[in-house]
């Protein structure tokens, strides 16, 4: 139970109330004082003083002075009127409770408002600081821009000056030249060939060429070289120098960063040509040329061109048995299978070809495009349109300019959208 402090003394004027509250020991801090519009409380455990004021006061302007074991309140009244007493006498418990709660709420609200106000001012300060820095930076930038602009203008002026000098120099020369050449023109005109005559005509102002300059000296200048020829040495005796180049397999330019990849590809190609799978007994029956995978490849190509797809497949099969590292064999066999509608085999062969065509270098671009296109076609014919589209897009990535691939890719996309809509 708190100990109530009852020994207070007060006096009032029309606008203010002065309340003096002695403290029995205990120090008071502002935290111990709680004041709202109509409620005043001082709580210094175990002492407690509270008062429901007679009339509302302006709690923001009112002050409390703590010192000498005494708290001195200066409360400014909201309405200037003389109070009968400091507190409301006939306050019952409920009203007290209500007033207390109200007071607390009001205090809370006030505190909230204060924090918000503080936040707002803080933000404004920040904004101001930011604007100030921006202005400074802007000023700096402008200064640099101005310097640059000044430099530019200075340079432009110099240029103009120089140009004028050139023009004046030219004019002077042209006047001189005109004088000299008038004497030379007569004998030279007779020497002139057809060609020179032709070139003279445009100078006499046809509308074909948009000749704007007034520099007359150029027109008459064609006459001057004949005067100078005697001083130059005769043309050189013609000769040829034979040149040897540093060998390079690829037709593209040499780039240091690509050398490693290119080496790898070349190495693979070389190895592929050397490997021969030789444990086949039928090899003894074959003629010499039929043991050469390249010859068999050519045979296969010819049969494909004539339409004998089965024969072509046989040729490629034999070639693969001899050397299973040549990507072109699989590529061409895939084309045959496509024609024969052996779609799964076509897919297998195109995939094998792609495997062998790594690393991707510009040299095997064409082969890779073909492999993707063939595999894509096979997928589409199997109605696996999404896989087919993937292959077409891969082909487009390698060779974006091929219109046929683009058209086919569009068709496949439409097909996919069509099936999706209907399903």
């Amino acid at each position, binding site marked *: 139970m708190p100990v109530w402090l009852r020994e207070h003394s007060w006096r009032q004027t029309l606008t203010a109330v002065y309340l003096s509250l002695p403290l029995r020991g205990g120090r008071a801090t502002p935290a111990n004082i709680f004041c709202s519009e109509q409620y005043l409380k001082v709580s210094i455990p175990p002492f407690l003083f509270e008062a429901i004021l007679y009339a509302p006061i302006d709690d923001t302007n009112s002050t409390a002075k703590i010192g000498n074991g005494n708290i001195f309140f200066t409360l400014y009244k909201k309405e200037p009127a003389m109070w009968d007493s400091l507190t409301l006498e006939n306050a019952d418990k409920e009203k007290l409770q209500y007033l207390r709660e109200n007071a607390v709420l009001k205090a809370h609200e006030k505190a909230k408002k204060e924090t918000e106000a503080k936040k707002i001012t803080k933000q404004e300060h920040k904004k101001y600081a930011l604007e100030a820095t921006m202005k400074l930076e802007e000023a700096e930038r402008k200064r640099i821009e101005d310097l640059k602009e000044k430099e530019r203008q200075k340079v432009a002026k110099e240029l103009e000056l*120089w140009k004028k000098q050139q023009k004046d120099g*030219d004019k002077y020369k042209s006047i001189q030249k005109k004088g000299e050449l008038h004497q030379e023109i007569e004998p030279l005109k007779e020497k002139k060939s057809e060609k020179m005559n032709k070139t003279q005509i445009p100078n006499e102002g046809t509308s074909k060429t948009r000749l704007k*300059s007034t520099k007359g000296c150029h027109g008459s200048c064609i006459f001057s070289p004949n005067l100078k020829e005697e001083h*130059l040495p005769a043309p050189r005796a013609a000769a040829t120098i034979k040149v040897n180049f540093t060998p390079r397999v690829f037709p593209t330019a040499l780039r*240091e960063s690509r050398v490693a990849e290119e080496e790898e590809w070349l190495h693979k190609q070389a190895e592929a040509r050397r490997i021969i799978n030789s444990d086949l007994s039928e090899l003894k029956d074959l003629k010499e040329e039929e043991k050469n995978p390249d010859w068999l490849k050519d045979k296969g190509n010819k049969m494909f061109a004539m339409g004998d797809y089965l024969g072509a497949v046989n040729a490629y099969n034999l070639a693969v048995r001899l050397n299973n590292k040549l990507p072109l064999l699989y590529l061409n066999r895939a084309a045959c299978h496509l024609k024969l509608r052996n779609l799964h085999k076509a897919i297998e062969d195109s995939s094998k070809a792609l495997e062998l065509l790594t690393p991707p270098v510009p040299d095997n671009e064409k082969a890779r495009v073909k492999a993707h296109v063939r595999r894509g076609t096979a997928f589409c014919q199997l109605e696996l349109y999404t896989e087919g589209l993937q292959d077409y897009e891969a082909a487009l990535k390698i060779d974006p300019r091929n219109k046929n691939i683009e058209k086919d890719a569009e068709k496949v996309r439409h097909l996919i959208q069509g099936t999706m809509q209907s399903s």
Partner: protein
Amino acid sequence: MSAAVGTERPQVVSHVQQALSYTVFDCKWVPRSARLLCLGSAARGTGLIQLYELHGARLELLREIEKPKPIKCGTFGATSLQQRYLATGDFDGNLNIWNLEAPEIPVYSVKGHKEIINSIDGVGGLGIGEGAPEIVTGSRDGTVKVWDPRQKDTPVANMEPVQGESKRDCWTVAFGNAYNQEERVVCAGYDNGDIKLFDLKTMSLRWETNIKNGVCSVEFDRKDINMNKLVATSLEGKFHVFDMRTQHPTKGFASVSEKAQKSTIWQVRHLPQNRDIFMTSGGSGSLHLWKYEYPAQRSKKDSEGSEMGVAGSVNLLQNVTLSTQPICSLDWSPDKKGLCVCGAFDQTVRVLIVTKLSKV
């Protein structure tokens, strides 16, 4: 743009930018004037030559000439100052010399190569150097040919691959060492990284090397002096500076190389007024300005007592990014120090001014 303004480094100031409606492959200043030429290919597959004049802060189109084949490269190097004829190489392998006042019929024309002429250079004209005016062209057909405008149809020198050997594209050519009437040297760069130096006086191969990346551009620091330095730029952002004063019998010329950026360095051009400063243009749309510093001793003796060159060092003076597309051509004005024009594949031609070059 540049790092700190107000320091003594040269600044690259963009003076004029001109958008074009065609792909520009080469741009050149017309000597002794404030006019420049743009050579290129229009969308419909014809060649275009446009003549612009610098007027204040803009370029004024003076004349436009259309030709049946797209034009890849051009040079004023082999004409006199009064004539100022333009020599061009086009996509069909034709070498033509045009009088810009009367461009309907070329002054000289020859179907020099079977494939596109990638690069052209001229020497002996413009009052620079001595000797006969000559033009060299390098083409995708692997040959490098030297022409004299007074001799029709046949080149005066032909550097072609040995019979039966596969050819490599020649990407760039340059003249050098033309300090008297007899001496002359042609340097050619190929796409397999070969650089070959041909001596026209003895009609032989004087030196060759391989820089491991396709060679995009070669240039001597001066055409009309005893050959001093050669800069060769390549793919993968590298360039090499060769000291050409001392040739070792086996090791050739000494060199220093720099990797400026990741992208191809398309062009190198030396400042006409200072042969130790050069600019490289890159595939990322950037320009780098470099200065070469000579070593304390330019040559030393090796273990066998033969003279060997010593390469110096290269410092980056400034770099600036102007475009997102490669800058394929670059030309310094021979009359105004620091004025240059560059053409990029974003169909713009830019006139730039590089300041403070005198203080470098």
